[in-house]
């Protein structure tokens, strides 16, 4: 290093990481207080998921395997909320359980309670346990449980008893209106996995030949879920925060659905299935957590990109100076 004072760009090459950290805190906090609904073009696989969700026959039960905890609330809570809003607005019954984490049931119960509260405030019907949904809590040992579900779902869930509010007693889950028609896992309207871990791999390995799988996962799991989607082993994917916002956007405007305000459709054709369209969600909230976080996310990524550019420019200039001397 020469004795001369380092130039601005040279200093940019070796920024203290703590300065970057401080800027990141500011960049992620401030936009939380700004309300905007950014326009977006949903990804093809998220469209596939939305289409699947909106076309589940109403008499079918959705299997909802929820394997996330508070640590990934930033993404999965949005997924779960969007999913529940869709299911509840379409009056589709679902059975919810977890095979990934013992803490997951506590977390999804909280989400269900919040969505129910939200519906109550909006004057909509609430979802009742036993009649509208069944909560089977946690099954330890993902591999074993999924194997058991694949072979004989009635046996796998047999030990679970659920309180029937009509009689006040615990009864086997399969006597509930939610599960009474289900004989095999293939009877599920859709097998949804909301996950932050590789339970999606475990599920695909064991269930893909037997039922229609669809996944809502964090950005980390996304890339490993996409090969499954490409091979047709899962039918739709929503990945990370973008997935949350895509879902919320489609819930608001529908999929390839004539929109009175825009006088058109969502314009990007959906690979190979352009003729398929789905309605927007008719009741309840559409924009929620996803739209709240999405702007912050833009700022954070921009910071990252700026940091990378600064680093490279600094390095480039440094090399040039070295060569000159």
């Amino acid at each position, binding site marked *: 290093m020469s004795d001369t004072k380092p130039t601005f760009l040279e200093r940019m090459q070796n920024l203290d990481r703590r300065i970057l950290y401080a800027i990141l805190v500011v960049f992620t906090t401030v936009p939380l207080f700004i309300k905007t609904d950014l326009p977006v*073009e949903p990804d093809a696989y998220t469209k596939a998921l939305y289409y699947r969700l909106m076309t589940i026959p109403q008499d079918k039960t959705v299997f909802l395997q929820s394997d996330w905890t*508070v640590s990934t609330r930033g993404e999965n809570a949005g997924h779960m909320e969007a999913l529940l809003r869709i299911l509840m607005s379409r009056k589709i019954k679902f059975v919810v359980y977890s095979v990934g984490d013992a803490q997951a049931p506590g977390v999804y119960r909280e989400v269900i309670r919040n969505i129910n509260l939200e519906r109550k405030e909006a004057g909509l019907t609430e979802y009742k346990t036993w009649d509208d949904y069944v909560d089977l809590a946690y099954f330890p040992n993902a591999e074993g449980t999924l194997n058991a579900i694949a072979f004989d779902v009635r046996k796998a869930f047999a030990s679970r008893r659920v309180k029937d509010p009509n009689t006040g007693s615990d009864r086997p889950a399969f006597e509930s209106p939610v599960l009474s028609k289900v004989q095999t896992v293939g009877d599920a309207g859709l097998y949804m996995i909301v996950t932050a871990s590789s339970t999606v791999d475990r599920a695909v390995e064991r269930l893909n030949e037997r039922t229609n799988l669809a996944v809502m996962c964090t950005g980390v799991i996304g890339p490993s879920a996409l090969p499954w989607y490409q091979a047709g082993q899962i039918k739709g994917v929503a990945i990370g925060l973008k997935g949350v916002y895509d879902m919320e956007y489609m819930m608001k405007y529908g999929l390839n659905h004539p929109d009175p305000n825009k006088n058109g459709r969502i314009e990007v054709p959906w690979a190979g299935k352009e003729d398929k369209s789905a309605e927007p969600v008719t009741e309840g909230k559409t924009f929620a957590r996803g739209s709240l976080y999405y702007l912050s*996310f833009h700022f954070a990524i921009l910071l990252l990109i700026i940091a*990378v550019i600064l680093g490279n420019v600094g390095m480039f200039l440094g090399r040039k100076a070295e060569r000159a001397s």
Partner: protein
Amino acid sequence: MINLLAQVPTYNFWRVPPLSGELWLKIGVTLLLCCGIVAFLMNAPTRVRRPVVWFFTFIAGAFYVALWIWPQPVSREPNTLPRDGIEGIGFLLNDIQPRVADVSNILTTILLGLGIYSLLRIHLSKIVKRQADSPFSIVLIVSMLAITLVGYMDWYMREFSVAGKEGKLQEMVNWTPINFAQNLLFDGFLQQMDSAMFSMIAFFILSAAYRAFRIRSVEATVLMASALILMISLLGGIVFAWNHGVANMAAGMHIPLANPEINEAGYLNNLKITSAAGWLRNTLQVPALRAVDFGIGLGALAMGLRLWLGLEKGGVTV
């Protein structure tokens, strides 16, 4: 509704009435038998050690291999008899499967005591030797004892007390101080600390990208370019604006982008970020990662075979 409860389970040699004398007797006899076997093994000559470990490993692995290779009984209804011997074994394998699935989990859990022992030994010895960090070791042990205590009490109340059985403890208004303490330690501290630690990765990503994403070699550049394209494609607002810019450009060139019949317009579509990122994902990312997957799958298969058949010299299963 009540008639279902009236159905009494049937019993056989393996299934016995719950909490009955017969059950405890069988458990006791089995325990004694196991102790005998262990005592015998402890005094067994060195040369039987390997075969014994190998035997257990082999049997455990053979179950899943058998489950895979044996024909599955199709459309099995509950409470039906197999049609022939082959199906009989298929039925049996299917019936045992959920029980075998529990085994490794239960065994790992029983081993947890060893881990706790290791942890306690390290920190207790720090406290006893009054090393520099010993106050922190005290903090560790106190918080560990606290959550263990309230955790068990909370569990006991929820599982066995009258209020717990009636599900009243689901509501916060019925809680006792124990439930509040458990909730505070678990929800207030542990879960939030999990989240905090997890979210710290974002900071590290920023500094790692800042440091590592420099155009030094072809590989680094390729990695960086692909990461940047993907990142930008996630920014819905920017992507939307860009894509509309492309559409406007097409309009300026009098190419009706929205008119699908003229395919030439399709080429401009490639300028959209989503198209570029989608192409990158579907055409390059998926096959590259699939190649990694194939390799890992084979590695796991080979390693599995070596462990199962006890082929590794000095390995843990022989």
